[in-house]
């Protein structure tokens, strides 16, 4: 469950990225955050993942008030979140297996468990055969799927994806969205920031629309967007 109550976010420069956001995303939901560039989509994801701190208000994620998550608790909190970026952020000097295994290794899972789950995640995204390859030898679509596998391998409660289809052609974008949908079906709360309205409409999922840091609509039906 994700809950924003009167949340503001402003930067040292004085720019207000988010203004009085009130939002509720139920556990196990799949929600799209959309809006123009600079509307605050990425900021919202960063606040949920504790990459940035909100300036005012209250954010609750998985029953945790984020204001009280400090020090080493931040690391433990992030182990329950899966991140997925437009630029994939893979480690180019590590194999695909090692990249996907990263959240498991960080959390201290055993080698056997890590191996089992990494293989399962790679199998799910259709890249098991490439586990020994390096990211730079893969296509953009394949790299993106590695990013998805890494984001879900540790079975997070929340999956945050920032413009995950930004660099992909429509067919690959659709394939990726279907993967997100499958993870959602097994109970993962999925929050995707995207401005690909056509795709969002096709998936018929709730939408959060942002405009210049303000919430226009919260969890509306795709047709209203």
């Amino acid at each position: 469950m994700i809950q924003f109550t009167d949340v503001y976010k402003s930067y040292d420069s004085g720019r207000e990225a988010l203004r009085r956001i009130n939002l509720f995303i139920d556990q196990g939901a799949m929600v799209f955050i959309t809006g123009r560039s600079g509307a605050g989509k990425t900021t919202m994801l960063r606040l949920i993942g504790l990459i940035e701190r909100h300036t005012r208000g209250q954010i609750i994620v998985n029953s945790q008030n984020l204001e009280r998550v400090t020090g080493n608790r931040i690391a433990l909190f992030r182990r329950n979140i899966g991140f997925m970026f437009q630029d994939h952020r893979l480690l180019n000097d590590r194999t695909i297996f090692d990249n996907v295994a990263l959240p498991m290794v960080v959390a201290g899972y055993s080698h056997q468990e890590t191996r089992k789950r990494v293989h399962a995640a790679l199998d799910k995204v259709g890249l098991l055969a490439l586990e020994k390859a390096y990211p730079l030898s893969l296509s953009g679509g394949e790299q993106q799927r590695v990013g998805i596998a890494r984001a879900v391998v540790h079975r997070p409660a929340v999956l945050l994806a920032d413009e995950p289809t930004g660099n992909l052609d429509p067919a690959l974008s659709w394939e990726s969205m279907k993967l997100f949908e499958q993870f959602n079906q097994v109970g993962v709360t999925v929050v995707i920031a995207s401005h690909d309205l056509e795709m969002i409409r096709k998936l018929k999922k709730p939408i959060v629309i942002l405009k210049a840091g303000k919430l226009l609509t919260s969890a509306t039906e795709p047709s209203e967007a």
Partner: protein
Amino acid sequence: MNKRLSKNSNTDNFSKRLKIWMSQHTQAMLSSVGQLRRNLTGNLFSIAVIGISLALPAGFYLVLDNTQRVMENWDGTIQIALYLQPDVSNERAGILQQELVGHPLIEQISLITKEQALAEYKQFSGFGDALDSLEENPLPSMLLVQPKLVAITTEQGEALLAELGKLPEVESAQFDRQWVKRLIVILHMLKRAVVILSTLLSIAVLLIIGNTIRLSIINKRTEIAINKLFGATNAYIQRPFLYSGLIYGVAGSVLAWLLLIVTTAIMEDPVTQLAILYNSDFRLQGLNIKELGALVAIGGGLGLVGSWIAVGRHIRDTEPV
């Protein structure tokens, strides 16, 4: 029953956490070794600089250690000569010798009677015939006192000399330790120089390791940020860097040790030749096992502290973007 279950579960938790901890440490160490191998040339240069920096104070320590051993070998030749009053009989001189045997600052004491002194003088002076013409033996009995090392190397020697000089049987007491005093002062100076040099070079080692680790952190900024994004704690991220610092320090110490072995081997022959000229069986000695252990511990410690200083700030500052 419940208590027992809870106890078992606590033990299981502990052993699970210990396993995770050990696994993460092994992984961090392997990651450090891998990182060192990836940039082998650069890292070997760093280790060489650390090794030379550690070899210098360790070398000075060896010089001091060997000089002190030289002094210990020479203590038998540094003696206090007690010239007794002419009227002190051989018997009385013998009694005085026995009285001084148990003195805490005296290692050994020997008596040269008037007759022995005359015989020796006759033998070595070449004035045998002239001495035969004398009615009386003009030479006094003498006690040769070999002080303990502490009396040779410290001011206690002066106190001993004064004490012995005040004895009623003693006419005069001589202790030629001026050169020993000079040597001791030089050794004190050298010791201070070694302490200062060691401190400065230790700081240099800290800076070298700290800077190497800092550059390594800057190069791995992206990786650190991604690790943090997926829940890595600062301690988890710091570990491989701390191991790298430790490896730099230990490898530098081992290199310093090898350099000292080579230096000792090169110097051994000339030093032995010099010792033979002084009728000494002195042999140059390198570091023993304990000293090698201390060198490795100091190197490893400096490596750890240097990297800890570097990682502490830089890793805290690196956040996911």
